[in-house]
């Protein structure tokens, strides 16, 4: 790539980065800060989903479960054992890794639809289990950690500004991981698998192992984000944190933003979360309005702009990994295969 293109591409990122870092200095409004934290969190989660769902085209409907595993592990280990979430995160990600391995072992040798449905089943198992183990998790009533004063290692702060920086830093780390992934061998192999799995296998690519590793990475990142997210919202319950609704929101963000790219999920997260807040302030808490809008947007984007909103910004959204065979006219056929 030419040097001038490089700088052109990097300048807006630098500007945005400086902007993001300095926002808390300009505003005291916790509502704005908190909304931005949601944007960061879901951007990270959508990027993590995108590894397996976008680059790998294996649609997972249970990434919220990994978030929940991270959140519950962090909070339970702190409340019951006094262990800092910075350490508990290792346990949470470990559990998520195991879970992803179990799901992958059962499904990655089969067609993609089995994986998708198995993730739905797994998601429900996790949610029901969390509800059922009341002694450990508080059940449907939820779980929380009482605020006992400012404590960095326990992720307790007077306001949300520290969370802002922590989750922004985490987003940066996740973006770096995703960039590395795109350029790595496994990223390349995954896009070959996406292109034609049978051909890839016949050419030496162990598609089972590649998909499994990608899914494990996706799960681990989601759980890590989940640990911090849990402490940020302070109160978690299975119906919110471990739900299909949350998994769907993550998928919607990735799709609307732009599947198979890095900045697509980021854009999608800002659009959806700000939209949700906007709807909330305009119409109040009309149950279901934001989810109905997500559903509507998902349909519209998939039909009219399947490459996502990021494709409106060609320099940011265009790379071969996001190209899908089905978008090319020459492969559109009248009859379904």
């Amino acid at each position, binding site marked *: 790539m030419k040097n001038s293109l490089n700088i052109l591409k990097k300048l807006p990122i630098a500007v945005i980065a400086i902007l993001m870092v300095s926002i808390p200095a300009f505003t005291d409004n916790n509502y704005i800060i908190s909304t931005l934290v949601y944007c960061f969190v879901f951007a990270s989660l959508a990027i993590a989903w995108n590894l397996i769902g976008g680059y790998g085209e294996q*649609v997972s409907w249970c990434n919220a479960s990994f978030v929940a595993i991270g959140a519950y592990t962090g909070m339970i280990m702190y409340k019951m054992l006094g262990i800092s979430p910075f350490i508990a995160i290792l346990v949470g990600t470990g559990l998520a890794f195991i879970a992803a391995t179990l799901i992958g072992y059962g499904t990655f040798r089969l067609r993609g639809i089995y994986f998708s449905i198995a993730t739905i089943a797994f998601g*429900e198992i996790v949610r*029901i289990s969390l509800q059922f183990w009341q002694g450990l998790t508080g059940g449907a009533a939820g779980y929380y950690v009482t605020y006992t004063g400012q404590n960095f290692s326990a992720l307790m702060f007077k306001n949300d500004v520290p969370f802002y920086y922590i989750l922004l830093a985490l987003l940066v780390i996740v973006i770096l991981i995703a960039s590395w992934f795109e350029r790595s061998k496994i990223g390349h192999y995954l896009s070959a698998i996406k292109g034609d799995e049978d051909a890839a296998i016949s050419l030496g690519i162990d598609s089972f192992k590649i998909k499994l590793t990608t899914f494990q990475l996706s799960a681990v990142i989601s759980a890590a984000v989940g640990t911090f997210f849990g402490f940020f919202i302070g109160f978690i319950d299975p119906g919110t944190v471990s739900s299909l609704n949350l998994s769907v929101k993550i998928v919607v963000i990735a799709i609307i933003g732009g599947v198979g790219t890095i900045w697509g999920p980021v854009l999608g997260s800002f659009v959806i979360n700000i939209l949700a807040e906007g709807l909330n302030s305009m119409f109040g808490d009309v149950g279901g309005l934001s989810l109905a809008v997500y559903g509507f947007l998902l349909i519209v984007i*998939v*039909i009219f702009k399947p490459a996502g909103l990021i494709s409106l910004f060609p320099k940011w959204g265009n790379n071969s990994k996001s190209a899908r065979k089905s978008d090319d006219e020459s492969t559109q056929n009248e*009859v379904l295969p």
Partner: protein
Amino acid sequence: MLMRNSVGKSGTQIMAWIIIQATINGILNGGIYALVAVGLTIVFGVMKMVNFATGEFIMWGMYFTFLLYTITGLNNYVLLPMVIILTILLGLLSYVLVIKPVLGRDSNTFIMVTVGLSYLLMNVAQMIFGPTPKGIPSEIKTASLSIGTFTVSLPRLIAFLSACLLIIAIQILLKKTMLGRAMRATAENAEMAQVLGINYKQVYTFAFVLSCVMAGVAGTLITPIYSIYPSLGNIFKIIIFVVVVLGGMGSVSGALIGGLLLGIMEALVGTLINSNLGPAGIFVVFLLMLYLRPNGLFGTANRVA
């Protein structure tokens, strides 16, 4: 589940009774699961796609029934034809606006678009009817038959028998009518079917709307049993996917047997272990089956790697 006073019976006899009663309940529930699963498996067989919004058509079938009941005061069985008409309209509308534009694209696209449809239908229902569960008063809600010492809930029995009738009707449709043959031909080999003069677009439309109708009918049949709320679709759809996958994606008999088996499994786990874990039991069985019989009970080879 009510347990009769069984003074003087031994532990094993009680256990046996519990298991058989649970199995009866499970079979009855399984009939409904099977009905919807057959519809879903037909869509999968013909269009090679999974309709994620299936549960919402069940839910809307129930809300249609509720609306019509509020207007006319008639019971749900009498309202069935009207509900079918409304469901056909909803199905056609969904097909034209949501499905048709993405025909020819990959199966993930279909899933995305039907997920969107599912959330749209679910939350429009919530915005219109509110989240509070609604019910339709019915004289037979608590009615039951006694067969020996076993109780058979009447509304569940009616639902089960209606479901069986419908499934038989569908089988006749598939095997004996031109339309059915067209559907099976398209399922077998879409290109060949087109060459033979079958208008695949009509076949797709019919298959999709048919599955919506089956879901809507299932909804009407269960109004005396379950209360109506917007996210009811979630529960059913998850169970039904599992049925379809277990049954072997495209096999009608697989969907039928899968539905019955899962109904039994859910009832047994719910009764013997804990009623809250009933659905979880299904999923665990499903995941186990994936490991042991990856092609489903009846399915054809689906392996990739």
